[in-house]
């Protein structure tokens, strides 16, 4: 489904602020796979998602979605295939427009928008049902402005909006990081429902070891712009939050040594 082929990205090249965010990432994600991406700060996990979504163009490498080369496609062109939920609850919705209007916008993701009515009667009942199915009571507030909702409610709606037209790829960028624990739980439960119901191919970045261990069927751990570990299948199932924390410890310890020494130790003992 998604092939990431040796992509690299450097921000502010040749300046004191140079950041080598991605240094050659190789990844093949199959249809229906739910991939968790974790990593230390600055490891490039959010950058990886942004590269796939098209927020910027990569310096080298290739991106292929369903066999099509999307490397040079701008973000709005990729939007047809990709649904996104951002970390900031305010990024995913239009605050001065109503819930119904936001949903109507999402219902046309990637499609040409013409002079047709945004609120056809058939779509209205369908939208009402989908909002009601979330179980948050928002179906009675469809004409309220988005800005009046809490962060958790907005993320739930952003998630619904991302899945309204079934995306080929769902990108979740630490989407519960800015929420309180109760809202975060709700959103995660909703996330699982949406992914399971439509068997969506998903990439989810998270800081929570709990989420990383319990969700998904594949786990990628990134360090300094590269993929360090890739757990799949039974190996992924066996991972516990403590295992992941141990891995992070390993990375921290190896970074205290010189890079070449760490590589040598890894080769000899691991």
């Amino acid at each position: 489904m998604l092939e990431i082929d040796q992509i690299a990205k450097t921000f502010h090249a040749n300046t004191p602020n140079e950041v080598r965010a991605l240094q050659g990432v190789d990844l093949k994600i199959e249809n229906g796979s739910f991939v968790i991406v974790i990593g230390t700060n600055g490891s490039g996990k959010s950058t990886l998602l942004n590269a796939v979504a098209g927020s910027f163009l990569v310096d080298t490498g290739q991106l292929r979605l369903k066999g099509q080369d999307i490397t040079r496609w701008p973000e709005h062109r990729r939007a047809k295939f990709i649904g996104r939920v951002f970390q900031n609850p305010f990024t995913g919705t239009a605050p001065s427009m109503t819930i119904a209007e936001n949903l109507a916008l999402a219902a046309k993701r990637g499609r040409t928008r013409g002079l047709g009515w945004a609120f056809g009667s058939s779509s209205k009942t369908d939208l009402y049902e989908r909002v009601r199915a979330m179980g948050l009571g928002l179906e009675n507030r469809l004409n309220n402005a988005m800005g009046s909702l809490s962060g958790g409610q907005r993320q739930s709606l952003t998630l619904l909006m991302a899945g309204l037209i079934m995306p080929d790829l769902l990108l979740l960028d630490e989407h519960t990081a800015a929420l309180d624990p109760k809202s975060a739980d709700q959103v995660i439960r909703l996330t699982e429902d949406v992914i399971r119901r439509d068997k969506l191919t998903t990439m989810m970045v998270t800081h929570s070891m709990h989420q990383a261990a319990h969700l998904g069927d594949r786990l990628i751990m990134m360090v300094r712009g590269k993929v360090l570990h890739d757990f799949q299948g039974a190996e992924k199932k066996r991972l516990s939050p403590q295992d992941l924390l141990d891995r992070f410890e390993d990375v921290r310890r190896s970074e205290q040594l010189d890079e070449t020494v760490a590589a040598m130790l890894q080769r000899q003992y691991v």
Partner: protein
Amino acid sequence: MMQLVGSFSMGLILSLLALGVLISFRILSFRDLTTDGSITLGGTVAATLLVAGWNPWLATFTAFLAGGLAGTVTGVLATKFQINGLLAGILVMTALYSVNLRVMGKSNLPLIQQKTLMTLAHSVAAPDSKLSLGRWEIPLQDLGVVGMVAIIICGVAATMYAFFRTNLGLAMRATGDNPDMIRALGVEVGWMTTFGLALSNGLVALSGGLLVQYQGYADVQMGIGMVVWGFASVIIGESLVRSRQIGMLLIGAVMGSLLFRLLVAIALKWGLNPNDLKLVTALFVFAALVLPNGLETLRRKMRVAN
């Protein structure tokens, strides 16, 4: 009373200017200063075509298209060439000054003998017929003008309302509200902004086209300072309407323009020196911006004091 009717007509004509500013300033969140240039462009294009004998409706519509072109240029400068939005508007406005001179061939153009929309409006009644309301006498022809302008404005406002409920219109509103979100939903923000600016300046030019027919001449300097009228009307309208719903915003802009013109007419009647008009305009806008919040704070303080 006649002055009141006149102010009403002017207020209605300039409400198109307010609607244009509403679209660029509030809906697209784009600080567009092309307005001074595009309202003049609408006026000069309409006047030139009317002098050439064009059908008044066609001439007025062409003025709208000319404004759309000006707005497109601003949009392209801002989005394709990445020029700061404010600067892009100023560049186009400045260039339009020369364009307007070229269009008319001179610095002003009188419309005394031409067949205009106003002559059409006047044709509904005999030249000296009046309507008697108590002790006031209103020439029916003036009422004809008000009626025609009112119909045009209602038509435009209704079309705008319908447009902003279509998928395209909804996407345009979202572009100003949250461009990151709408880009992730597949909208090309640059194109959408340019289209919105074309629409906005088209309306402004339409206002100019009607204005020259109302006042009987086109002048290359007629647009100077008009953007402030537009902003003032939008802001006064928002204070009146207190809603972010699109229908209310449209109504608010029209109401704001009418109220604003009315206040100016009253001020002039009370002996305000026309030279001080711009200062008074600024004070009106200041009051409209500050009063709603100021009153709320005052109310809260009084509640606490009790």
